[in-house]
């Protein structure tokens, strides 16, 4: 298969005892992008990452990382993963944790990993178990990036961090992605923070892909229409979601700028607006 595609899934499905966590998921993550993998809780984000790392095996379809199927031989050398709970050995020091990364990966840039930790001002001699949440995240991130991957999967990297630590972590991530050209796939349900950071978006909902495309294209292809209360916007533009109140009606539509019905005002939506509208609508998958 195509070794230049960092992550590709075709008809991918995963069924647990309680039902399908991911179903008929087909997507292709382009190289050199920061990809936001968004969706409500239980949408299948962690399952998708588990399948990519080989921690979980697929029930249906296939997934490939740089053209190879994940298996039990450890992850692809070009792939790094940071799990939701940021697993680290609490009894190891920060320096030992980085040494561990060097011992367990064929490619390892000790200088780079160390510089990431030092820039975050995490003491190298401290035990991991004594670090704060933000410091732990930075160490885990250094462990993931230290192997010089070409694709990094980060499962909810910003959860359980305070606002300042979230900003710093995200900033580090974006800077490293820009400087090294790696592909970053970042799952989150905090949408506001991702705008301006990611350039590709995949929206998972109830186990399937609802939206998949470049952020710029997605923003250009949608409009907010605000009009009188109790009305639906008429016209050829497909309505994604409508919210009504006594003061007016707001609808998100897929349309070009020119197609504005009479009596309605059009405005550019934010990424969060688009994603939330799709999440609310539970509609059919639409590719931009």
């Amino acid at each position: 298969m195509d070794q230049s595609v960092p992550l590709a899934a075709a008809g991918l499905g995963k069924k647990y005892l309680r039902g399908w966590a991911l179903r008929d998921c087909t997507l292709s993550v382009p190289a050199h992008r920061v990809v936001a993998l968004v969706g409500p809780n239980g949408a299948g984000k962690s399952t998708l990452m588990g399948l990519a790392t080989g921690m979980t095996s697929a029930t249906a379809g296939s997934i490939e990382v740089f053209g190879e199927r994940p298996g039990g031989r450890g992850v692809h050398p070009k792939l790094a993963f940071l799990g939701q709970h940021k697993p680290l050995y609490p009894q190891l020091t920060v320096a030992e944790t980085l040494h561990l990364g060097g011992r367990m990966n064929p490619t390892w840039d000790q200088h780079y990993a160390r510089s990431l930790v030092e820039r975050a001002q995490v003491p190298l001699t401290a035990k991991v178990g004594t670090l704060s949440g933000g410091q732990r995240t930075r160490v885990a991130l250094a462990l993931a990036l230290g192997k010089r991957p070409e694709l990094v999967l980060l499962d909810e990297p910003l959860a359980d961090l305070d606002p300042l630590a979230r900003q710093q972590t995200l900033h580090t991530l974006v800077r490293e992605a820009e400087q090294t050209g790696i592909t970053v796939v970042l799952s989150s349900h905090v949408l506001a923070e991702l705008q301006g950071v990611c350039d590709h978006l995949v929206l998972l909902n109830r186990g399937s892909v609802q939206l998949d495309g470049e952020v710029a294209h997605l923003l250009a292809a949608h409009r907010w229409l605000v009009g009188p209360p109790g009305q639906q916007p008429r016209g050829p533009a497909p309505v994604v979601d409508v919210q009504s109140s006594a003061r007016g009606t707001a609808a998100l539509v897929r349309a070009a700028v020119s197609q504005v019905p009479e009596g309605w005002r059009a405005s550019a939506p934010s990424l969060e607006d688009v994603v939330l509208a799709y999440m609310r609508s539970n509609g059919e998958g639409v590719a931009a």
Partner: protein
Amino acid sequence: MIWAAWRQQRAQLLVMAVTLVVGGAVLAWLWTGSQGVIEQNGLGPCVADAHQAQCRKGVQDFQGRYYDLMKCAQVACLVLPALAGAFMGAPLVARELEQGTYVLAFTQSVGRTRWLLTKVAVSLLPMIVLVAALLVLLRGWIGSAGQLGVDGQGAFQWLNYDTSGFVSVAYAVFAVTLGVLVGLLVRRTVPAMALALGLFLVVRLVLAALRPVLVPFHRVTGGVGQQLAAGERVAGAGFLNSAGQPITVDSLKIRDCTETGTALEACYQKAGVAGQWAEYRVAGDFWPLQGLESALYLCLAAALLAAAVWWLRERVR
């Protein structure tokens, strides 16, 4: 990966090193002490045969000092494999599963099989060295006292048998692999430790009872009143009926048979007893039994390890 395994088990390995040094020093000290007593009291000839008349006083004195110490040392060496399974084997994978750190390990570029086998090897090899070294010292000490000490009970006395030869090393290997598999299935450190310990004891007791299947006892039969030849250790004895079948006899019926010769036989015959049987071990059974039992435990250990590898590859998600 070896460094990673070593670093994570550093505490246990340190405890093992301390056990080796302290246990070894204690055994060496007891050995030189008992050797001194033997030389001082001129007990040298009694080591081979403690039943000589000139030995009686010296033997009592020696056994008063060292007999219980020998038993204690044997029990300490006997429980080593069980402790290895509970404290080294069970937490090996269970702690990683419990703390979620297996996700970290499995998302590096090291395969699961290599990960597990390296971890097992890093704990098992030092364990083998520890058990073997302490057993060599224990046997050296007990052997140096010969019939003066616990060896007077024979090589097949259970404590003597279990702590000599190489079966204890096989027990330790089995205990660690059992602990690893139990930890992998239970996924909780403390319950896995308890369960591994319990299962090990059960397997040990069951397989100890099955030793006659590995190497059968030697059996002799003879007439009533005859002295049956017995070997190293008698495992069982009883009466036979006229058809040669073993029977249980009410001891009240033969209580009054105190005559000798044909009168005795007639007296027993009235109670339905025509002969007697005995089963026993001879000295030549020792190494075949040690070898077969060790092989059995090592095969079980290999099977448990294979099961652990399979489970880790296919079932841990």
